[in-house]
């Protein structure tokens, strides 16, 4: 079985990942994906670079558990999560969440569920370089609210 979770410095190719997820599987009638990218502004300041740190081992484990939970909650065929770490530039891709299922509803829901879950529970931290110097990005209450709608304990921010 192909890896479900990858934490990597390298970029990823959406079409290659989606083709791998579909794998000529005739049960699949829907594939939904989300790609997060680096903005050039955040909280009113321009961002020149972004550095992503993570907790090796725990990160993979946490996301694997999230995918298991997505399979329990939704009738999906497969899921794939890639998250980049290290030094990134504005416009770079940061994260991919892709889900396959028989019908679209389950893919749409599971994709959003995984992304909302990852935002509050996966151990990643962003540090931005701005004209005023480097700063660690603060967690957002809105991310807790997004997770709460899935009944996920939301107390990160």
């Amino acid at each position, binding site marked *: 079985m192909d890896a479900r979770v990858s934490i990597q410095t390298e970029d990823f190719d959406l079409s290659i990942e989606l083709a791998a997820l579909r794998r000529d599987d005739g049960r699949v009638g829907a594939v939904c994906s989300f790609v997060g990218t680096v903005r050039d502004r955040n909280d009113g300041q321009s961002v020149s670079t972004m550095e992503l740190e993570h907790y090796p081992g*725990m990160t993979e484990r946490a996301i694997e558990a999230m995918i298991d939970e997505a399979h329990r909650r939704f009738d999906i065929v497969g899921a794939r999560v890639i998250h980049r770490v290290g030094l990134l530039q504005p416009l770079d891709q940061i994260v991919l969440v892709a889900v396959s299922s028989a019908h679209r509803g389950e893919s749409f829901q599971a994709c959003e569920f995984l992304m909302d879950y990852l935002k509050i529970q*996966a*151990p*990643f*931290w962003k540090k931005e370089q701005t004209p005023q110097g480097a700063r660690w990005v603060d*967690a957002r209450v809105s991310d807790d609210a997004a997770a709460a709608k899935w009944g996920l304990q939301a107390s990160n921010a």
Partner: protein
Amino acid sequence: MKVNIRYFASIREALDCGAETVDTSAVTLADLRDELTGRGGAYAESLARGRAVRLALNQVMADESAALTEGAEVGFFPPVTGG
């Protein structure tokens, strides 16, 4: 008992330390946090009560009430900001 501690992000930077092994009599994660803040300086500041500190025990998110075991891995870090 000995436990292995990992620090991440702003906490790692403030302590200038990514990992250490400590010999502790702490029973819970809360006890361990108190022990570390008792060192004073950057530890007292970055792990102080009231600061947003999240904890992991053996690489799983944990509450401060969780019990330590010999050789456990404990992570201290700020709220996560991935995605």
